[in-house]
């Protein structure tokens, strides 16, 4: 917590000038400021000189020393860059004019945003003409408050020839559907089932869109942000009288109720 600035007490840092509005009586401030000002200016000058000397010494030392190893430096987070010059974005736009709505490069990976209603033709083109034969992953992200559509569906694919990876992103509204790519890559079958199960996104023309991690009849989609982390009462408790829904050790209230019932 030491590098969290808000936790350090504010009294230590401000100069006397900043302090004055907060102080209670105007008399005391005048006195203190008159007494302190000449002192603080002297000190200031001395301190400035000291600090300058220190900084110069530090600079000289830094110049003299060898460059630090990357793990001694502060981490450098990646930054977003425009990737519309990416060859795949160019060839996609050449095949389907204006299909790439946005192209972004972050941490070395390219993300292309494409409209949801054209996803199958785009994926088919990428697989057969651009050689992205391997669909690494297919998943979704929930943004409950976003206006242009609640879900992002992410396709993450790989080309073996030059080991390049490409990410497609589409926006799907909560009540909308998206076409299945299970016929393009067989591996998409279970991944789409999982996204359907956990997010409730419906994939049209999927061979068997069933729940996969939860059971048929489960009420809700667990990875939606509005699904409670502690879970819901599914009605599937084995002995609801002995182990009441909610779990944990029985509370006093429950004991009393039990006693009353008996």
């Amino acid at each position, binding site marked *: *917590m*030491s*590098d*969290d600035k808000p936790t350090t007490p504010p009294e230590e840092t401000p100069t006397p000038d900043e302090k004055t509005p907060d102080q209670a009586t105007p008399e005391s401030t005048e006195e203190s400021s008159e007494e302190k000002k000449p002192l603080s200016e002297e000190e200031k000058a001395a301190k400035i000189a000291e600090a300058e000397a220190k900084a110069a010494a530090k600079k000289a030392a830094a110049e003299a020393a060898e460059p630090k*190893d*990357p*793990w*001694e*430096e*502060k*981490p*450098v*987070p*990646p*930054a*977003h860059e425009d990737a519309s010059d990416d060859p795949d974005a160019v060839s996609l736009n050449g095949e389907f004019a204006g299909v790439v709505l946005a192209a972004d490069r*972050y*941490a*070395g*990976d390219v*993300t292309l945003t494409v409209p949801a209603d054209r996803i199958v033709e785009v994926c088919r083109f990428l697989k057969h003409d651009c050689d992205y*034969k*391997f*669909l*690494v*992953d297919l*998943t979704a*992200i*929930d943004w409950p408050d976003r206006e242009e559509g609640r879900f992002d569906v*992410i396709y*993450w694919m790989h080309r*073996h020839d030059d*080991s390049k*990876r490409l*990410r497609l992103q589409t926006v799907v509204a909560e009540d909308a559907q998206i076409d299945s790519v299970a016929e393009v*890559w*067989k*591996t998409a*079958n*279970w*991944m789409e089932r*999982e996204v359907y199960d*956990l997010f409730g996104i419906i994939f049209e023309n999927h061979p068997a869109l069933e*729940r*996969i*991690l*939860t*059971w048929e009849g489960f009420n809700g989609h*667990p*990875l939606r942000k509005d*699904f409670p*982390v502690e*879970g819901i009462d599914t009605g599937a408790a084995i002995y609801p009288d002995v182990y009441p829904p909610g779990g944990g050790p029985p509370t006093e209230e429950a004991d009393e109720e039990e006693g009353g019932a008996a």
Partner: protein
Amino acid sequence: MTDPNRPLLDVEEMEINFGPQHPATHGVLRVKMKLDGEKIMEARPIIGYLHRGTEKLFETMDFPQCIPHTDRMDYVAAATNNQGFCVAMEKLLGVTIPPRAAYIRMMLAELQRLASHLVWLATHAVDIGAITPFWYTFRERDAILDLFEEYCGARLTLNCMKIGGVPFELPDGWLDRCSELVDGFNAHIDEYENLLTENRIWKQRTIGIGVVTADEAIDWGLTGPPLRGSGVKWDIRKVFPYDRYDEVDFEVPIGETGDTYDRYLVRIEEMRQSVRILRQCLDRLPEGKTLARVPKVLRTKEPGMVYGSVEAPKGELGYFIVATEKGTAPYRCRVRPPSFINLQALPMMVEGHLVADLIAVIGTLDIVLGEIDR
């Protein structure tokens, strides 16, 4: 007199359940099968019995707190799970880890690969009927787990890596004991091979079973030994080297026909390559720090998504992390579990085979249900 088209016996397709509580399913996997006699006409894996909502839990906790939860996914290979999460996080935060930390991580990961492959070999062989290898492989696995215990205090759920490096320096004498184990390991692998590789029963049970061609393997998204067994030379450690895998020499073994026997040979050879990597790491282990200079509170800078992956013993294990601005927890963390994706190919691999071959195929896919259900 009789109609020639009438079958000799009145056979009816029978629907039966295999699992979820069966030792050969390696956990709680249920396979619903339609059988014609003993032949599998249709197989449908049913999963989710071990679903704990790990991805949901990730969203509620700080980045470092996620690491212990990764242990519980592939619980026979916890170190590589930790490594995958740390690699992805380091990509997100822009951290470079010190060389000593990278080498310690590689050693832990390769020891874990050996341990995981030993569990695979033991259970796979037991499933098929060869009980003896179990006693040999678990002897060595125990020695590996002792090394883990000495390093981080745990044997299975290790929690042995940290974002930016590794949490501890190696204990005194650990390198000598590890070195001793590594030096003797190839002889142990020879022992297992003596029991199985030329064993006639083993060959009959595995050759030609669960054949996957290279194109099918790629289309079904197989990774790891099931992909390499089909002759595709592909390994994350070579393709996208993480830690310091670009500094060590090793081969990527591949199979030819893509059957269960080839996958067995690939994994055996992978163990030898792991020993080779371990030897190089032990010889070259650099001095220095074990943790990079990372802030105490890990905070992302801007919204973005990264995907970091490692070559886990089962295949490509990837973590897809979505970050918000100045967030201390993942907004979404998707795990790409290799077992989940590999299991999907099970129906394709077993249809037309006998029920006993289903056991062999489940064994050869090397699935862990903790990772499949998450």
